[in-house]
């Protein structure tokens, strides 16, 4: 039986990055994944005649440039598109253009323009501090060790250095909802809606739900890397997966695709390896799981191998999500009221007001589909024609909010909802329906099947304060180490938790190497 230093479960971006850093540190590593292609949520698939769609993650908002250069992802074929502006579509065709801290159009007042600059610069101050917390291992608060003490001191100092006003504001808003904060700053409903959209993407919260300011700051952290807006991966998200896989291999890691791990094996209270769906077993000093905590502990380890208290925490780890995805292949470039063709390369959002988002959210709470949804649209083929046959285009959109398990069941509902979504897009792009060749709706339930995301949650677990930082995923298994010796978490279910995001890999390296070498 071949023995590795480390087995990484899951060839998602976090798994691959962890593997790369471990291999770089001289460990023998094998990455195992049941899917045929690497990348996990950073994946593409073929659709219709000659189309390539990013079938899970759509935008790069927070990819750490440090990781890109460490792993030479550029040389391995990763190329990112332009940073996009956000165009908030208004029903009357007079749209709102938001780029960084600049906003124009739709009768926006100079007061709101100034307010946005003030707001964004304060957010920058806040995310700078959060970034400090994210670049480090989330410090424990009571069981101190020096690493944690130092991080805590750094954070405390950073908080003080913000100045009294900022410190007060941060401590005031960090736990509340984006709805109130938006109303404190802005008047323009469209602007408030477009900004609030970033606070609820990938969650099961509405703008009025406390905690949404936290998730807004979490997304805004990408700005700390100088990312001015969401970017698309040239060739589709799958290219990121490919590049990461090549990087890992070039650093000496073995990647075995198409073989799923069926269980994590324990001997005398220590995790010693894994069993594959082929029946074969692999042994290793450590096992890293980039699967979400529920899958890891409930399905792979099994409750019978962990203590009741921990099993309870796993069971109650919240992984709900109301984010679905819409794929349309189009015979030509769609035309949106009031948009020039080259505007179509930008990020288009349909979130007319915060109340519109909230009323899209309400029905989901009762496992229903509301009459109108909120969209985060990309037409990637404008910037990257390689994704479609020449002259043809595709439209992909993140859709909020569709329930994980509607009462009628998805089979009955899917065609209805799909039609309703296209109808709603038609308000802004009347000719769209005629251009559609093939269409596809990916529900949260589908994400669970296709990408192994419990509850369809992109973050591997809701990003609420009580499931973030030193509390992620749950007390007793924080700081990437689990209660099981030899088993580590390196997925988004561990701090800091994100879809296209990468510190955990680096931290995993420091942890393991200090432990295992």
């Amino acid at each position: 039986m071949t023995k590795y230093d480390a087995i990484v479960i899951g060839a998602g971006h976090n798994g691959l990055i962890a593997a790369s850093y471990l291999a770089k540190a001289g460990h023998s590593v094998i990455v195992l994944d049941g899917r045929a292609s690497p990348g996990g949520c950073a994946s593409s698939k073929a659709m219709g005649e000659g189309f390539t769609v990013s079938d899970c993650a759509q935008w790069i908002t927070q990819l750490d440039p440090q990781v890109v250069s460490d792993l030479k992802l550029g040389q391995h074929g990763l190329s990112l598109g332009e940073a996009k502006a956000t165009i908030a579509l208004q029903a009357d065709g007079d749209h709102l253009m938001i780029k960084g801290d600049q906003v124009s159009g739709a009768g926006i007042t100079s007061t709101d323009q100034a307010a946005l600059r003030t707001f964004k610069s304060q957010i920058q101050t806040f995310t700078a501090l959060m970034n400090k917390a994210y670049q480090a291992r989330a410090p424990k608060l009571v069981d101190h060790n020096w690493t944690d003490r130092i991080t805590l001191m750094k954070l405390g100092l950073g908080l003080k250095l913000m100045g009294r006003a900022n410190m007060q504001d941060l401590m005031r808003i960090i736990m509340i909802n984006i709805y109130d904060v938006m109303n404190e700053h802005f008047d323009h409903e469209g602007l408030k809606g477009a900004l609030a959209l970033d606070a609820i993407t990938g969650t099961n919260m509405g703008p009025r739900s406390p905690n949404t300011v936290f998730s807004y700051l979490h997304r805004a952290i990408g700005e700390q890397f100088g990312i001015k807006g969401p970017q698309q991966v040239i060739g589709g998200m799958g290219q990121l997966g490919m590049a990461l896989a090549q990087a890992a291999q070039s650093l000496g890691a073995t990647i075995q695709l198409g073989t799923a791990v069926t269980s994590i094996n324990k001997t005398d209270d220590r995790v010693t390896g894994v069993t594959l769906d082929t029946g074969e077993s692999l042994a290793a000093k450590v096992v890293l799981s980039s699967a979400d905590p529920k899958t890891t502990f409930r399905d792979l380890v099994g409750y019978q191998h962990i203590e009741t208290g921990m099993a309870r925490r796993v069971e109650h780890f919240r992984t709900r999500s109301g984010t679905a995805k819409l794929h349309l292949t189009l015979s030509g470039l769609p035309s949106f009221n009031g948009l020039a063709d080259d505007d179509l390369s930008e990020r288009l959002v349909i979130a007319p007001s915060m109340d519109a988002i909230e009323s899209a959210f309400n029905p989901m709470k009762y496992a229903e589909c509301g009459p109108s949804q909120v969209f985060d649209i990309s037409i990637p083929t404008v910037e990257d024609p390689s994704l479609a046959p020449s002259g043809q285009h595709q439209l992909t959109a993140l859709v909020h909010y569709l329930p994980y398990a509607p009462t009628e069941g998805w089979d009955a509902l899917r065609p209805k909802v799909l039609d309703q979504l296209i109808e709603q897009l038609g308000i802004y792009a009347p000719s769209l329906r005629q251009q559609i060749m093939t269409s596809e709706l990916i529900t949260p339930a589908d994400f669970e099947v296709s990408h192994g995301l419990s509850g369809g949650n992109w973050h591997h677990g809701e990003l609420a304060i009580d499931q973030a930082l030193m509390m992620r995923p749950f007390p007793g298994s924080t700081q990437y180490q689990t209660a099981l010796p030899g088993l580590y978490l390196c997925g988004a279910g561990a701090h800091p938790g994100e879809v296209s995001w990468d510190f955990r890999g680096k931290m995993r390296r420091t942890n393991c190497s200090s432990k295992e070498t």
Partner: protein
Amino acid sequence: MNDDSFSIAFRREKCHDFLLKHDVELVLNQYDAIVIGAGHNGLTNGAYLAKAGLKVAVLERNPYIGGATVSRELYKGWYYSNCSYVSSLLRPEITRDLELPRHGLQVVPFGGGATFMRNGDYFGSYSDHDRHYREIARHSKKDANAYDRYAADTSRQTRLIRPFLLKTAPDPTSLKPRDLRDLLEFAGSFTALGEEGLLDTIKFWTASVVDYLNEYFETDVIKAHMAGSGIIGTALGVYSPGTAYVLLHHYMGDVDGNVGSWGFARGGMGAIADSLSKAFRSFGGEIICDANVDEIIVKGGRAKGVALKNGDEYYADIVVSNLDPKRTFLDITNPKDLPADVIKKAENFKIRGSSGKLNIALDGLPVFNGLDPKNRLMQGDLHFSDSLERQERAYDDWKNGTWSKDPYLDMMIPSLTDPTMAPPGKHMMSVFVQYAPPKINGGEWTDEDKDGFQKSVIDQISNYSPNFRDLILHVECRTPREIEAEVGLTEGNIFQGELTFDQLLFNRPFPGYAQYRAPIKGMYMCSSGTHPGGGVMAAPGANAAREILRDLHRPNPVPGGYADD
């Protein structure tokens, strides 16, 4: 003795510099301290200032005292606690220290409660542990076995917070030795929980009440029955993060040391205000009713007194506002006397009307789902929302700017426990209604709206009680409009400000002003809009008095910390 002579000297010296500035008869209106608003916090604050030897006047706009802790005979022979209706949070330290029982306060604990279900069944909540276990087990064995774990975890949280209720919240941005010391003490009691205990606490303080209950229970009606405490008086739904704390806020009180239990003040909530006023007067305090304050007089950046709407003026170097932060800074203070940031903060202060109330005189006892009216459960809090979804949908109505079509009711029949509330054989019913928005679709409440609101409540009750309608003798319906107009609670918010994290502890009412001192020298706040917040607790009033006396370098009779349960 010594103290008295000091205060006399203090007063004489005050009169002296007045004689220089004013004509003599104004001296009659000269006090050491003026408290605006004779609610329970105003009276408590006044009582402690007077106890410390100050000459104190409490000014009340209404012809009667009590603010939201009143008992009123609105229908011959029936006494309505027509705002706050049950007692638990009133600090035992204050009750003892001001000898409220000697001044006539008697709180009678009530047992249990029930949620009546659409299927004709009910879930009863019994104060007897074993009876309660059997009742839960009747709905779910698993939940029955989880209950003790739930009770233990929750009481751990209440024990954690109780000591901080009678303390001023430390300012984390300050480097004053006192703040640092208190912060360390604060942090200390948290770290004492251990890593996991601390993280569980953070979860408790930030999660939604549903997520919190989901950790223990599986049965909808049981969760719905408990979740009610997470939304009462709050503009949030049971699914909204932060509501678990509101639950805690309702659990941290006690009756005679029984933490978490609630009771009726004999004679209605007015008995609390009455006993406080008697204590206040016993220290030489003066209560002036029909005194509607127009503006706080500020001279040379110092508070000097108040001017009434009728033109009268009262003078004091200490002016304490028991009004909510919005009224305090936006209505009765002249903007030119305030820093701009405070006005902005007051404007952004969240004080949302989310509830209304019906007070009903009954000819006899209604029967619900066939439950024997003599059953002890009837003496407790009664509800009809048997599912979390119904509670959350009631909140959706509020978000959409209208009253709940299927509201969450917290219903009581106090006359079952306290016969003095109604004539023999008759009954008084108090129905707290969640949700009712401060405005209807952005517009003011009309009388038609009020009738519609009342109808939705009466209808719901009648669905579970065939004989209810026929028993009704008189109904007082209070929407946020009435509560604001009569009691002076902005938007009719019963807590004088949302209990969300941006408005708790060192953030209440706003960052930088959470230690009861207003930005104007000599001006203070003592309302529920300050730490530790709403509920008939009297802690803000006492804490504010402690800070005032500290500033005056006077002997400080205000109990701090807390007497153990």
